[in-house]
């Protein structure tokens, strides 16, 4: 450890600030999880360990319904967004010369990161209402379409980041070695891009699972997702069942993130 190597960790108070930060980040979540195992029906008193709220939550038909709907929407939205984002990322990085308006397109693709979600929500509400009147279609398609659009930038960013670290010379080498553009993509670009695609899918999936505002505006009657259902419940009675559902939701997200992390690490 040379003295010349400056390290922020050596600054006074570094440890304290780090601990406070972690407390802020994790204490509320830890509390939530701990109280999900509370025997009592109240949120404020601890009366001993119990799994009764998990049993209640898992037996709740409504919870089952909204969870499945959330997963279906997230699955579709993340898949579609990943495909679109991959194509967009290829178009914006895999050209020998920048085309006019390339930066503009980059900004346009990332629209959902810049336009306030509530504005998108209102816009979609009005837009989809018009389509609903015109077509009479009431299905999940609206939510899937809205989530897909919203997830594109989250899928796009890791894919683009991966492509940018990938040397264009590799694809040039493939072309030099008689690969057609399609073969070069299939045998060189795609295999190297897999970690980025997995990361993009994962981010899109988790983003879709989590989206409340847009869902709230777009959903038809009976199309609650897990987060909008929870929000609705919290407005009425608050029981530790909510803690249990939240904990399960957290677990689901963690599993998704971990699985994709491991997959992308293995491939890289």
């Amino acid at each position: 450890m040379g003295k010349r190597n400056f390290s922020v960790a050596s600054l006074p108070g570094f440890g304290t600030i780090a601990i406070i930060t972690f407390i802020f980040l994790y204490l509320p979540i830890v509390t939530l999880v701990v109280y999900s195992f509370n025997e009592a029906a109240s949120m404020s008193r601890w009366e001993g360990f119990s799994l009764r709220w998990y049993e209640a939550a898992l037996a709740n038909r409504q919870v089952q319904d909204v969870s499945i709907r959330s997963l279906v929407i997230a699955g579709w939205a993340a898949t579609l967004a990943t495909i679109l984002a991959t194509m967009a990322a290829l178009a914006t990085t895999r050209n020998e010369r920048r085309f006019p308006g390339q930066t503009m397109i980059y900004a346009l693709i990332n629209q959902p990161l810049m336009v306030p979600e509530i504005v998108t929500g209102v816009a979609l509400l009005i837009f989809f209402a018009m389509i609903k009147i015109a077509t009479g279609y009431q299905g999940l398609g609206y939510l899937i379409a809205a989530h897909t659009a919203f997830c594109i930038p989250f899928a796009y960013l890791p894919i683009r980041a991966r492509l940018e670290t990938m040397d264009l010379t590799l694809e040039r080498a493939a072309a030099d070695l008689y690969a057609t553009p399609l073969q070069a993509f299939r045998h060189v670009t795609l295999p190297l891009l897999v970690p980025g695609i997995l990361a993009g899918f994962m981010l899109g999936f988790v983003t879709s699972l989590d989206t409340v505002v847009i869902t709230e505006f777009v959903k038809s009657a009976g199309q609650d997702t897990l987060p909008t259902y929870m929000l609705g419940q919290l407005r009425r009675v608050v029981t530790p069942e909510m803690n249990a559902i939240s904990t399960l939701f957290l677990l689901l997200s963690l599993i998704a993130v971990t699985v994709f992390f491991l997959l992308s690490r293995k491939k890289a």
Partner: protein
Amino acid sequence: MPSSTTRSDIEIDQLSKVFGSGDDAVRALDAVSLTIPENEFFTLLGPSGCGKTTLLRMIAGFEQPSSGAIRLGGSDIADLPPNKRPVNTVFQSYALFPHMTVAQNIGFALKMLGRPKAEIEATVAEMLKLVKMEPMANRKPSQISGGQQQRVALARALAPRPRVLLLDEPLSALDLKLRKEMQVELKRLQGETGITFVFVTHDQEEALTMSDRIAVMSAGKVRQVGTPREIYNHPADRFVADFIGDTNFLTATVEKANGATARVRLPSGHQLDAGLPTGLSPVSGDEVTLVTRPEHARLATEGPLKGTVENAVYFGTDTHIHVRLDTGDLFILRNQNTTSAAALPEKGDPVAIAIPDGAVRIVRS
């Protein structure tokens, strides 16, 4: 020189490349014409930025010419994409596919061409043997050394038996010893395969030792094309003379030109016969630039050049003696060291320099 019976393989005809447009247009290549016969080890030599890579990239098909033509075996290849050209490249960065094994890398081109599995396996085995990489067939590129990666890149480009192999400074990332080994190796491979090599380097020694012929380039133009001997002994202009090997420049006045040589007078009054590059015919009274190589001149008691020793640098096999001429110019001599520790001149010694006949040439300035 290639005999007239060899077929020309690559013809580059008035090829120009301009990057950008308007005020910041860069003319990377300026009306370059070259003819490279089959089976030749041809080298593009020149300083950084002179357009070597641009020329290679246009032959490979990664870059479109602004004007001019490239013909391969007589037919224009302007409209062929890289994957349709019988030309392979060894990239400066190797560009090995990191997710494939050494064997898969080498077999890639044949796989893309849809060759039968047995043929691919046989060729890969043959190539692995050629570059002595058999024990590492199943390693990934990240698990082999830089020199080994270089050999794999070479094998990968040779596997489909291209008509022409383009090599863009393939040795520049290697250390000196490995570099010397690979120089020999490359020369051997070129001889064994009979493939035309177009080799890019900015190392003049590498170019001189490896090439059948060299094109010396500068600022997008070809200055001279010739065998290493021609380039070294008969440089066409000041740039070539300066770029290839160490050179002493002198100014002199022409007394009389007669064909291939000219009688010139040095400022000291001494007269010498100097060789002339083809196409140059100075007349009496012209000021000309003379070049002479450090190893051709020697210290003498009497000679056309006089000066004072500034420095003597010992290099093992030889000693470089820096002499400040009475005209103010610096002149470098290279004296081979012998076992008998002959007395070397010391700093401040007045000396004379003798230049044998045929060791002085006039160059275009």
